[in-house]
């Protein structure tokens, strides 16, 4: 899994590209810890996340919670239908504020 960071105005957009599972989870967690700004705005873009395992869901939620603790506004965007179904069935989806696309997420966060 590759992490890709870009700035969209005041919003840090981090794309998680590839499979997020127990193999990639530790590196992803470490990478996100470094990329997530304190007191900023973050959009986690999952549009190219092809697979999400239990461990992957946990990393996503941990980072999300870390952001909330640091006072960083955070959203998730671009969840594929398949990943969304898994997140819905396990209840994880309800923890996140979700945007359909990066554009929509940036707009909501920056508003």
């Amino acid at each position, binding site marked *: 899994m590759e992490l890709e960071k870009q700035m969209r105005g005041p919003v840090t957009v981090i794309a998680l590209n590839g499979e997020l599972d127990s*193999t990639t989870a530790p590196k992803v967690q470490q990478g996100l810890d470094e990329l997530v700004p304190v007191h900023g705005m973050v959009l986690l873009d999952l549009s190219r996340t092809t697979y999400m395992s*239990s461990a992957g869901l946990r990393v996503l939620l941990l980072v999300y919670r870390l952001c909330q603790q640091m006072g960083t506004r955070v959203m998730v965007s671009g969840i594929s239908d398949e990943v969304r179904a898994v997140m819905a069935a396990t*209840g994880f989806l309800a923890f996140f504020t979700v945007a359909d696309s990066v554009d929509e997420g940036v707009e909501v966060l920056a508003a």
Partner: protein
Amino acid sequence: MSRSPERLDAFPTHRIAGFGVRAGRPLPFGASRVPGGVNFSVYSAGATRMTLVLFRRGEDEPLAELDFPPEFVVGAVYSMTVFGLDAETVEYGYRADGPFDPDRGHRFDRRQVLLDPYATLVHGRDSWGGQRRPLRSGVALDDFDWEDDRQLRLPSEDLVIYEAHVRGFTRHPSSNVDQPGTFAGLVDKIPYLKSLGVNAIELMPVFEYDELDNERVDPNTGKPLHNYWGYSTIGFFAPKAGLAATGRLGMQADEFKNMVKQLHRAGIEVILDVVFNHTAEGNERGPTLSFRGLDNSVYYMLTPDGYYYNFSGTGNTLNCNHPIVRGFVLDCLRHWASQFHVDGFRFDLAAILARAPDGAPIPNPPLLESLAADPVLRDCKLIAEAWDAGGLYQVGSFPNYHRFSEWNGKFRDTVRRFVKGDAGVAGELATRLLGSPDLYRGRAPTASVNFVTAHDGFTLRDLVSYNGKHNEANGEGNRDGDNDNNSWNCGVEGDTDDKHVLALRDRQVRNLLLLLLTSHGIPMLVAGDEFGRTQRGNNNAYCQDNELSWVDWSLAETNAGLLRFTRAAIAFRRAHPALRRPWHLRGHQGDGLFPEVSWHGERAWTPDWSPGQRLLAALLYCHGPEGHDCVYLAANAHWDGRELELPALPDGMRWHLFADTAQPDGHDVHQPGEEPPIAGDRVRVEPRSTVVLVARQTESRSERE
């Protein structure tokens, strides 16, 4: 970042089969994640050698086989920490070496890779009816964000239990959920459950089982039959993958936990139907999956010559009161109560849990005593199906330690017989209505789980539509299933266009529901009975994974009147403490209007218990902080109608009509709190009908003040 481990034991001391390992922690049993790896612990009293077999997820051939060296063994417990192992992608099992000597009860077989009895995931049946892979153990991630969830701890007298099969509940195309037939699908139906008013859902088996272990075929269609109900457990600590939308990803534990959490948010408890009387290994001809290969003579009740006692009717009997098995059962229930926040358990064929290793019933079974006194289980409802297939019938005498309730089979039989019109049943019905104090003296009415139907037997609709069972589709020539149903088809067997027959059936269903929902104790309904679910006369649908047994939600519209009636009857129960008494009757309390119960007849205060009467009229009364609660119930199972004189109420109160099952759809029931007053001091109870009245103030409180 520091490179040294966080714990003194977080590094390997040995290298076995390419893996860094060290002596593990014997407790907890099973596989658990520890810093740097996974701790495995398994016990066997009789094994001479134990091997941990590791697999990569989904692969048939082992990744490695690790023998436990002697220094990794404490007592009979083999434990090993394996480092560098990914808990999410590993599957595992054990090979246990030991004597194969059936005469002495030993059936070790080193060729088999055995499931861990404590496995929190079971892989191999990852989607319902899907590919059959070898059964392997897996490690569930046990962290979950429960937020503030805990067991609901509803008072037992307030419970209305709804029995459902996870798959059958939403598998039908009419269910209109995103993930049919799964835990997630059930979550989508929570708003419905809430609107119905039930506050506990009792799930038929959810521990891992093999739905494909049935070899019979439907003689009409030639299609293979399933083990659909699942009373045949493979993994007692593992939620069944095939009942989870995410089972193929191994996320069934998370999905199950979310279901419990969402049900709790809606005020609904979760009770699991647990099957500790036998396992899926069957008798000596059955497969060796786990227990048989680990410690056959410990886990099973064996005859002196090493064969299996069969008190369960399925081939083997779990040796529940053996000290080791007791510990296993207790660990399992603690796991479900603490890890999954489950609110209670219903024990299938629980009389077996009161048998000694030689099968003899024991008055103080240590297993039941342990369960009753366990601190982790303190707030769990414990419900016994107080009989077994070996002829031990303990309804009213189950060793209960003031903790166990019982499925009251006598309630079912009495209510059925009364409503179908048997003579001489009214007296016994009176006892059943009051929570069966004859059976549960010294306990509470809530010792009685009252039901008219359960998964096993006719649906409510079929109970009034069939005289006999029609189980041909089960492939056993209609020999399976109970013959003693106390059912009556109201004049025509099965389908009919006869309006009179159909009207009578509608009325009988309502009579049964009203008696169930006005009786003291804990009422239990079966999913779909509230809108007329039918199994077309099949009273043993254990193998019917199809439209015969799935809940058809279109019936909620077809039979909207019955659904409205059921909802109102549940709401009425909730509104009336006189129906939910937490203690057995104590007579007149001195300061109230009436005794707690009084019996009536064509004349008030004058019941006629003679056999031909077929009439029961009761005034249930309770005086509490909310004021006087008076409910009058008259059930007439005779073919003639009756005029009943009502007990007189004090000035300012009048009888109001809640329900009259003789009235046509739309007029048979009123919303609790909106019951219209009745004229005069008498009530007409039509043939085969039930009337429920409630006493209400004729003027509002503010007017009087």
